[in-house]
């Protein structure tokens, strides 16, 4: 009753606002597109979902001729490259973030900041061609082969090393997620209240003690959020990985062997996929990829938001 009264009151005070109606309808395009993506991709994958059921996720088979399809090799390749990339990018990304948040020399800070942001502007396909023709041959001679020769007894470094493999895909991905990692971490570190820093310095702590025992612990959740966001980017990255991972349907134990990812399988095979089951299986790979990245991204958003909310208080 009271609510209805209040609403009636509001309506009499506020004149009809056509602008509000029109802009609100337009602003619904983004959420509607999101829903449409989930529905369309989901329904296009239906033939494969019906045919293979849950086995799709655990099967290692990928035989377009016999129409046996399983996602396990692609899930493996995607997870290994993404987590390895994150592990490599994390120390550098946090180092850069601390540098950008703390370094007082504005010119040096600006140069590094712009440089890292330009990394984000470079198209994925350029990373791909550079990885394929510059990084891969160099890595093979100077890193992969020596590693395999010296530590080949360890399964993850077993030889013979190939030019395109899981390791180089991870390195390229690490470079590509670095901007995400460092720019968000920088914002989070900057959001830590200055009073905490000052209190720590006033107690006689060195700069590093302040960073490692006060600032970074306070920013921990946000940095974790940045890492998860970077993971989401790495999971979905397509073209650069497709060009350097070797594209072989396999679950290799060695990082020096070629493999495949969800995204690169779609990129390579979708245009050649005939029949109904083969394209549907590829779309189901896309569905798996989308659901994983959606979960990861929402988790990251919640983490980053919780930190910036704390900082605002």
């Amino acid at each position: 009753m009271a609510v209805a009264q209040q609403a009636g009151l509001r309506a009499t005070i506020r004149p009809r606002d056509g602008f509000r109606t029109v802009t609100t309808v337009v602003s619904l395009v983004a959420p509607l597109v999101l829903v449409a993506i989930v529905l369309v991709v989901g329904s296009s994958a239906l033939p494969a979902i019906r045919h293979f059921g849950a086995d799709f996720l655990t099967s290692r088979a990928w035989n377009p001729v016999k129409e046996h399809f399983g996602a396990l090799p692609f899930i493996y390749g995607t997870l290994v490259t993404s987590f390895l990339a994150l592990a490599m990018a994390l120390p550098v990304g946090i180092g850069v973030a601390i540098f950008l948040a703390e370094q007082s020399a504005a010119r040096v800070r600006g140069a590094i900041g712009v440089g890292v942001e330009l990394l984000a502007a470079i198209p994925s396909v350029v990373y791909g061609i550079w990885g394929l023709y510059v990084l891969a041959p160099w890595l093979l001679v100077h890193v992969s082969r020596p590693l395999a020769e010296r530590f080949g007894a360890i399964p993850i470094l077993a030889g013979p090393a190939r030019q395109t493999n899981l390791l180089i895909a991870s390195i390229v991905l690490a470079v590509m997620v670095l901007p995400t990692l460092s720019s968000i971490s920088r914002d989070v570190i900057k959001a830590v209240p200055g009073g905490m820093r000052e209190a720590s310095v006033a107690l006689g702590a060195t700069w590093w003690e302040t960073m490692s025992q006060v600032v970074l612990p306070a920013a921990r959740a946000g940095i974790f959020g940045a890492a998860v966001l970077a993971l989401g980017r790495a999971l979905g990255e397509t073209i650069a990985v497709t060009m350097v991972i070797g594209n072989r349907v396999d679950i290799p134990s060695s990082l020096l062997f070629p493999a495949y990812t969800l995204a690169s399988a779609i990129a390579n095979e979708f245009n050649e996929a005939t029949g109904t089951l083969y394209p549907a299986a590829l779309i189901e790979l896309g569905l798996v990829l989308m659901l994983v990245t959606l979960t990861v991204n929402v988790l990251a958003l919640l983490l980053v938001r919780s930190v910036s909310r704390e900082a605002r208080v």
Partner: protein
Amino acid sequence: MGMGLRMTRNRRRLLANMLARGAMWLMACIALLPLSLLLIYTVANGLPALTHLEFFTNVERPVGIPGAGVAHAFVGTVIMVGVASLMAIPVGVVSGIQLVEYGTGRLGDLVRLACDVLVGIPSIVIGLFIFSLLVAPFHSHSALSASAALAVLMLPVVVRTTESAVALVPGALREAGLALGLPRWRVGLQLILPAAVPGVVTGALLAVARAAGETAPLLFTAFGNRFMNFDPTKAMAALPLIVFHDALTPYPDLVQTAWGAALVLIVLTLLVNVASRVALRRQISLAAKL
């Protein structure tokens, strides 16, 4: 003795401090290494292709015949990104204004969340989505479908950057307009939006740069084309597609074309990026003046 112990302990603390600072500098330098290597090698490998003027005027040639160019891909990228901008930018700008003017409630949060999630969806999945929606039903690859896919990628970027640009406009400007009795649409479009134009341009340029460099959403939509094509309902070439396809062939002259196209692409995206930075600086000084 206690004094001596404290001295060594302090020395150790200072040493750790210096090491940590050194590590920070080291990480910053490591971060710049791949960028410099990437730029150096792309210029070195791409420049030879660009020295022939035919590279900008001709279309692709069969392997072994000199004089191959990427004019068709250049035209294709401009057309597809242009049409995508026409789809995404108006919708994105209006959504961004809505978020600032009315977006305090749950609906606004929903739109913001949708945009943040949309940014994170892999571009290859957007390619699959548009393929199922706009390519499969018409049995034809088309530049229009590619534009739609690129527009989906651009939309959230435009919305969020417009929102932050419009939010920078001082509230007094809005209140002044409303106090003069202007209707909300005139306040929004004729007062607030002009004050936020440089920021909106920043966002639009960032979105254009992102779209121009994307390959994955074009694979199943634009598909690529060896010939010059202006018909948006047919398959069309694009610079990123040329890089992707030609780089993976075993023919040196095609690989050379791929490097050339990669260099053109890098120059284009970096130019647009620099332009967006200039626009951003202008927005900040404009907001300070208001």
